[in-house]
């Protein structure tokens, strides 16, 4: 019996210890009307070889494309050591470190992760992860509303340059608590500073800025942060953490720095893998720590005075505070944080910086190559490692035609940003080779001249 260790003899002995005739009897408290005799819609079990064949066949169907899509998930090189270590049984098959003495491995990894994230963002305190970038953003919004003692508002300003799905998810996750997200317009791929004046009349608990923006551009976060702080708002920064190797960290935005940083941890050693599991990171200023959702690991000493790690500030959490907890999160994305910590340890700040810069250079090259054709022009600059190209025709059919040649051309912006016209968001991380970039340009030219997409 796969995974069941019981022998006939065990079963007999155990039943006799319990004092029942058979295992059926163990279910006798389930009302007879509810009992079923089997799972008839479930296929029969397979041996490991057969399942392996099945999955390899299916995986093979998804092969053979080169991706120039970013839009929140980025393909980076993941050193082989990362997942070799992450999937060691002791990390992979442990759970939340409730028994600290038997979980120092997990706890120390989280402590190291927290330290790295605080350093990267220029803020004080990181939690041990949330589900993904979008939910981390939602939690940041909730946290900001709870934390802002000066402005008693449930409204939050969000720039249109924030990832559209993040905005949607935050809306769905906060609406039950009566929180309202109000959008700030964008112009030229940036948060429109002129729009701020119209907003000063109302009170907002926080403002949310993404840097680099969803469109890959750079916002004037200094001005925005200072403006928001002047209005007593809390500033929430959403950053692709890879960019922080090069770009100014949220903790140094404007005069006082943003108050909360959050975002998607996936670029740090986690494969794009159809969208998950990734992890959301969340870092804040010291004074907000009691409003922080999620687990936090602290260093302390044991009874012999030896340093060690333990979950701390648990009084914020659902298993203690129940309906008054800072969040309902329980299971988080621990293993992903382990991957990120190992990834970051392997790269160091120099490696991270070089990776970020190579992504930037590759995207510049891509934009250059693609705009050789008159049909495409880059819309906004400077950009980090994503850029918006405007085409002289709808991008949907282009994407389809390129896909057939094995190229995933980018993310079609027409639904989220109709004002941009025929706009495509492209990305070339350090993984894209010059040949792949050249091929994209060549295939694009061919596709453009074919009648189908004209």
């Amino acid at each position: 019996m796969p995974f069941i260790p019981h022998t006939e003899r065990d079963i007999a002995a155990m039943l006799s210890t319990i004092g029942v005739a058979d295992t059926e009897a163990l279910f006798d408290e389930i009302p007879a009307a509810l009992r079923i005799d089997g799972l008839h819609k479930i296929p029969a079990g397979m041996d490991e070889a057969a399942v392996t064949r099945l999955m390899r066949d299916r995986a093979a169907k998804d092969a053979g494309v080169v991706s120039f899509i970013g839009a929140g998930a980025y393909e980076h090189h993941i050193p082989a050591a990362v997942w070799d270590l992450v999937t060691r049984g002791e990390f992979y098959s442990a759970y939340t470190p409730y028994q600290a003495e038997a979980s120092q491995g997990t706890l120390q990894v989280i402590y190291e992760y927290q330290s790295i994230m605080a350093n990267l963002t220029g803020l004080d305190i990181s939690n041990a992860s949330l589900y993904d970038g979008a939910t981390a953003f939602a939690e940041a919004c909730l946290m900001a509303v709870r934390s802002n003692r000066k402005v008693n508002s449930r409204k939050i300003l969000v720039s249109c340059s924030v990832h559209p799905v993040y905005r949607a998810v935050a809306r769905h996750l906060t609406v039950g608590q009566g929180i309202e997200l109000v959008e700030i317009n964008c112009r030229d791929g940036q948060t429109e500073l002129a729009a701020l004046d119209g907003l000063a009349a109302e009170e907002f608990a926080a403002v949310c800025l993404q840097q680099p923006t969803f469109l890959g551009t750079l916002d004037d976060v200094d001005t925005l942060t200072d403006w928001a702080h002047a209005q007593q708002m809390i500033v929430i920064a959403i950053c692709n953490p890879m960019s922080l190797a090069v770009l100014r960290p949220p903790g140094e935005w404007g005069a006082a720095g943003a108050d909360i940083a959050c975002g998607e941890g996936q670029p740090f050693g986690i494969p794009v893998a159809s969208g998950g599991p990734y992890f959301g990171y969340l870092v804040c200023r010291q004074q907000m720590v009691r409003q922080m959702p999620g687990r936090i690991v602290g260093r302390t000493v044991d009874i012999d005075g030896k340093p060690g790690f333990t979950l701390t500030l648990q009084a914020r959490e659902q298993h203690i505070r129940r309906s008054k907890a800072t969040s309902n999160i329980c299971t988080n994305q621990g293993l992903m944080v382990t991957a990120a910590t190992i990834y970051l340890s392997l790269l160091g700040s120099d490696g991270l910086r070089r990776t970020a810069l190579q992504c930037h250079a590759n995207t510049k090259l891509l934009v250059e190559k693609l705009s050789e054709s008159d049909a495409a022009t880059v819309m906004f600059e400077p950009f980090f490692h994503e850029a918006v190209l405007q085409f002289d025709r709808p991008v949907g059919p282009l994407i389809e035609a390129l896909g057939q040649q094995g190229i995933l051309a980018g993310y079609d912006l027409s639904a989220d940003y109709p004002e941009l016209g025929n706009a495509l968001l492209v990305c070339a991380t350090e993984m894209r080779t010059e040949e792949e970039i050249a091929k994209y340009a060549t295939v694009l030219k061919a596709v453009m001249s074919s009648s189908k997409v004209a």
Partner: protein
Amino acid sequence: MLEPIIFELSAPGRRAGGHAPAKPPAADFPAQFLRREEPLLPEVSELQVVRHFTRLSQQNYSIDTQFYPLGSCTMKYNPRVCNRLAMLPEFVERHPLAATEYGQGFLECMYELQDMLKAVTGMTAISLTPMAGAQAEFAGVTMLRAYHDARGDSERREIIVPDAAHGTNPATASMCGCTVVEIPTRADGDVDLDALRNAVGPATAGIMLTNPSTLGIFERQIIEIADIVHKAGGLLYYDGANLNAILGRALPADMGFDVVHLNLHKTFATPHGGGGPGSGVVAVNERLAPFLPVPIVGRDGDQYVWLSAADRPRSIGRLSTFMGNAGILLRAFVYMRLLGADGMRRVSEFATLNANYLMKRLQTAGFEVSFAERRASHEFIVSLKLITNETGISAMDFAKALLDRGFHAPTTYFPQLVAECLLIEPTETEARQELDAFVAALVEIRDLAYSSPDTIKAAPITTPVRRLDDVRAVRQLDVVWQPDSESSA
């Protein structure tokens, strides 16, 4: 041996090398955007990384190294092949926004997973997107609200939970903007129906229940409960964290539940990963189907497609950036295909056999078992209150002494109803030998509690650190390494 913090292994200027492009051009951004100082990251060699994290991993107890009877967590064996196949290069390299033409293999797995999960719950529609149980609870309660609101019944904002409920249940209700109404449990472990009748009313949005409950027993009056709540206009939410106990034996749908969440990281053996990731799929019956969170995998002719908000206008929306924890879903899919219909019924059969056997053996050994006259489901509670009173040795002390004997501790101090409790869940993948050894360890600890309590108070002594000062961890908060924090600890 104390493992240094990775920063303590650093040397300024050391490069692991080989993992980043060699010579990228310099940053050409305007200065205002540029980082002024390098962030403090570890500067270590690849060997140092491998050695550090290998050694850290060895400091963990885990299913792969120890019996781990953590109640309510279903710490069963995570088959290695599930990980292997979910990590096939084509799966890990697939961009979430790749058009569905370039993901038919993946989507086919997801579509079939949806079907299988509907079959094990009896529900008619499902969304795979929630990334853990708690997020699925959020989805479920939000759907309850949406359902009532859609009927113009928008005063219904109360969520009833039994006092033994898992902390995420009340926390979720609050997150959804609902009020929590707690109802007591009877001495026999079932819900107090009179209290329930008193609790329901025009404000009732619904009730959240796990069945078997966190007390480890099957709620026998479930049909009456459904009746009471439904009659009052409320709906029933099934917290499926404990599905392992009844997999293939009974369907939440038949019990009258309107919405169900499952923790795939429990029943379907995906990794716990030191705290996650998990996956908390949410399934519903017809009346809630329109409200399911998106995306959902649909079928259009012979193509698998994503159903998004456009296709499902009444959806409560997206709860994740993409589709949730896809890789965890793949692992669960592989697991379910390995087991098949019979294998899944064996899960509940042997999880229940192990729990009842262990309960009986402990009872015979003189331990006080809560709800002893009831069948254990896949887990059960031992109360050490008497021992604590007589010896001063608490459930916490027992937990620590178990660590010294090579076992992870059961869940302690939960459910909060039972004083000095251990919630013990052996799962179906443990052999009888292991259970017997665990009984022997508990007996030994109890004997020592009486004969030599100090040795137990001193536990653990074999772990990398001994009992930690939790109070200091809060008072002298040290959650980020500082170049000088070494000396402070």
